[in-house]
């Protein structure tokens, strides 16, 4: 009798893990650990990227304060995720289409959404979602995973039109459990569509830790089943994030199909400012450990060593950001209140009877 073949399941599992190392260019102190991942960015571009990251940190701090004063509405903190958000976005073109999640407002603003509109979105005002034709983006998505399947569609559309552009989209570690996540990367893979799909793995989906989402060792490896490349990158390292993103964009834009990127990062703040208390699920030790990996410190050290960044420069960026925010809030304050009659007019291009009746009713009510 032939010997039965035994299969070592544990070995199968272990084998997958070796395929997904964490790409890193800079160590915690800003020293280069992998020269091959340092991008060919000019000095001006490096400074611009740092400025954007500092701007984003200021926006986070000011938004938190404005929320507490009741001058903003919904806010999902972003501090800690600057490299993951701004360095990835830096790799894309204005004509690439951004499909953001609710935490991806900094990228949206850098993609062209006026800041005062981002504030209006936060306040729950429709003007915040009135996007100019040349803004290649959708408003932040609240339904987790919904932007992913849509990104697959945009990515296919771009490919069919023969454009060398891509759709790029973000979700969280939690979002990577959603059915839409799998459907999206599978569709995009099947059509070899021009998509770049990010998972910003910040360790928690509200309170649920990453290891409760899946038994997979990395989230990047979810790409395997879709037949597309998956990469895990140190999401606190702006240079590695940029390089990986740029390469993924080129790959997708040139018709090779989509890429899945997992950026390993951290959010210092609460999940959102709507009543979440991170001390219920996160320890101070964990916070401290991640603060040491801060993308701003890391990039600042790197740039200072190259003689490209000074304290004064950073202060200037911060002052400018604060002024910009102040002006944007003032502009948002000037926008007139919303009317239910206008909402009714927005429902259809041609108004059916029921809507016409209701427009009259609310116009009368609003004129009282």
């Amino acid at each position, binding site marked *: 009798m032939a010997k039965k073949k035994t299969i070592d399941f544990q070995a199968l599992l272990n084998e997958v893990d070796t395929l997904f190392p964490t790409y890193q260019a800079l160590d915690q102190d800003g020293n280069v650990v992998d020269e091959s991942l340092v991008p060919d960015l000019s000095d001006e571009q490096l400074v611009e990227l740092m400025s954007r990251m500092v701007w984003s940190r200021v926006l986070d701090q000011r938004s938190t304060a404005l929320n507490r004063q009741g001058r903003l509405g919904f806010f999902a903190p972003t501090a800690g995720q600057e490299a993951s958000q701004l360095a990835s976005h830096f790799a894309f073109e204005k004509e690439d289409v951004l499909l953001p999640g609710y935490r991806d407002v900094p990228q949206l603003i850098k993609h062209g959404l006026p800041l005062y509109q981002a504030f209006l979105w936060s306040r729950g005002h429709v003007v915040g979602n009135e996007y100019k034709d040349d803004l290649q983006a959708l408003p932040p998505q609240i339904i987790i995973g919904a932007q992913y399947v849509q990104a697959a569609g945009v990515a296919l559309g771009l490919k069919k039109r023969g454009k060398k552009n891509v759709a790029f989209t973000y979700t969280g570690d939690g979002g990577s459990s959603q059915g839409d996540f799998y459907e999206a990367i599978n569709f995009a893979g099947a059509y070899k569509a021009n998509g770049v799909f990010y998972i910003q793995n910040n360790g928690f989906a509200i309170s649920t830790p990453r290891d409760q989402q899946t038994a997979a060792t990395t989230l990047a490896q979810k790409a395997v089943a879709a037949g597309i490349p998956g990469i895990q990158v140190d999401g606190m390292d702006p240079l590695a994030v940029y390089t990986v993103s740029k390469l993924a964009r080129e790959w997708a834009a040139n018709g090779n199909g989509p890429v899945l990127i997992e950026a390993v990062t951290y959010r210092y703040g609460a999940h959102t400012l709507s009543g979440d208390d991170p001390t219920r699920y996160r320890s101070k030790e964990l916070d401290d450990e991640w603060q040491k990996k801060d993308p701003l410190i890391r990039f600042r050290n790197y740039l200072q060593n190259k003689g490209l960044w000074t304290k004064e420069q950073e202060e200037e960026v911060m002052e400018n950001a604060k002024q910009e925010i102040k002006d944007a809030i003032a502009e948002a304050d000037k926008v007139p209140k919303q009317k239910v009659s206008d*909402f009714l007019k927005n429902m259809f291009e041609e108004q059916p009877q029921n809507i016409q009746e209701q427009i009259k009713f609310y116009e009368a009510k609003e004129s009282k």
Partner: protein
Amino acid sequence: MAQKTMIQAITDALAVELENDKDVLVFGEDVGKNGGVFRATADLQDKFGEEQVFDTPLAESGIMGLSFGLALEGYRAVPEIQFFGFVFEAMDEIVGQIARTRYRMGSTRNLPITLRAPFGGGVHTPELHSDNLEGLIAQAPGIRVVIPSNPYDAKGLLISSIKSNDPVVYLEHMKLYRSFREEVPDGEYEVPLDKAGIAKEGNDITIVTYGAMVRESLKAAENLAKENISVEVIDLRTVSPIDMETIIASVEKTNRVVVVQEAQKQAGVAAKISSDIAEKAILSLEAPIGRVSAPDTVFPFGQAEGIWLPNAADIEEKVKEIANF
């Protein structure tokens, strides 16, 4: 007895059933350590352990499919959908699968599942958190939709739902969670499913409503009493299927009726009630059936909720119109 908010009453009901029946399982996104985003499941994991109270990965279709499977294995599943607007992700499981299984298998299987979820306007949530989607589920036979309007009912109805062998969608209006307290008995008691309650008796006109609109209607009734209009307020409690007997008896007494819902006007629960009244009691009516609802737009941007949501003043106006017809 103690004075409790609606959310405390809900936590209480869950604790009672987790204690009484070890096959009761409470699960969903963030329900464990965090105790849910509204703390409805606060401390339950500490008390009952991770086998009975646990976090799930972030996937609503998965949560409801899990509920289906656990119920088939004899557990009483009490899943939480974090906000009811996220139910679309799980519509197939709820309406396409869970609601039909007993029928489909010739009543040889039951699915004792109680889906809990917050919903309802007036608290300025982002998109799709507040939407009043009860009408969508009410469209499907085979599944109950329960909406309490106060702490006492919330506890009794939730216990009845969990003990029921049929699937229930149990919806918790966010604005009611902490807005007032009421005496809530300790331990187990039930408020029957499928039975409306009379929130206030009256003779001149009937208001039929549910959820947060019960309180708005009671406010309106109080003001209308000053103008000598005596209003009877019916709190549906179960919005699908609807207790038409109680409604018809009241309409036959008052001869006038206004149906109030927070949801948009088109289709939905109020439309069903109005048509049933027309069908069963048209000759008792001395005026058209009045309806108060939100307009037919998407649930509005946060800043405009105040105008969009129906309130006591809108109800008063409509009641006067129908009373003076």
